[in-house]
């Protein structure tokens, strides 16, 4: 699938793929239902419409993460910019939810960094987005959420 936004760099810095043993509708709900989002994004999360902003509110351990909503099309695609402060740098994260064979759903996260990041920040960000894959997977496949790593 090609990026829905022509302005997106076409060479992501990081790609992670996982497969969910669940139908695509269920997996999509995990990323769009407000109750599920709170679990998966590690805290209360509000995602606006395209052109608006989104925010994962601060928790005890993590600062707020915020950014803009770039795209929600095609269905199962969510493209966000994000950063740890109120004026986030133009770093993109792209979620793609696609059907694979036999009722299995593939979720891809592509990260586009706008500049060279220090290693510790990159590692922290990767852990965060990886947790975003592990949380929904456990929830969808077992019905119970994974304890939040945040």
């Amino acid at each position, binding site marked *: 699938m090609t990026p829905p936004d022509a302005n997106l760099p076409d060479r992501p810095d990081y790609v992670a*793929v996982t497969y969910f043993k669940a139908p695509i509708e269920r997996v999509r709900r995990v990323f769009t239902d407000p109750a599920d989002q709170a679990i998966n994004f590690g805290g209360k999360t509000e995602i606006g419409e395209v052109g608006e902003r989104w925010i994962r509110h601060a928790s005890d351990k993590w600062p707020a993460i915020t950014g803009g909503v770039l795209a929600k099309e095609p269905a199962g695609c969510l493209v966000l910019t994000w950063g740890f402060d109120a004026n986030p740098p133009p770093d993109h994260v792209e979620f793609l939810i696609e059907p694979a064979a036999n009722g299995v759903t593939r979720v891809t996260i592509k990260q586009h960094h706008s500049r060279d990041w220090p290693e510790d920040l990159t590692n922290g960000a990767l852990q965060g987005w990886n947790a975003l894959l592990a949380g929904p997977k456990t929830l969808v496949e077992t019905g119970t959420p994974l304890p939040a790593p945040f």
Partner: protein
Amino acid sequence: MDLVFRALADESRRCLLDSLSAKSAQTLAELCSGLSMTRQAVSKHLAILEEANLVATVRRGREKLHYLNPVPIAEIANRWIRKFERHRVDALVDLKRKLESE
């Protein structure tokens, strides 16, 4: 998980993962240039790694970019390394890296 272990049970494929870990988004040509393997061998090993989901790919025009996909290895770690032990394991890994680089 069988596919993952089978894919990892080969030194050449582990070298390919090392290469992708050091530098993301490599094309087949780039991967070949850094390793003493034929293009055909690299291509065959990449297919096995991709099937095991250890390598993810992104198409860019006619090129195919390769990425180390950390998810299967993270799943192995999650299965056998309990969360509260992890920081101790991390400390050991750091120590080992430090000692072996001296």
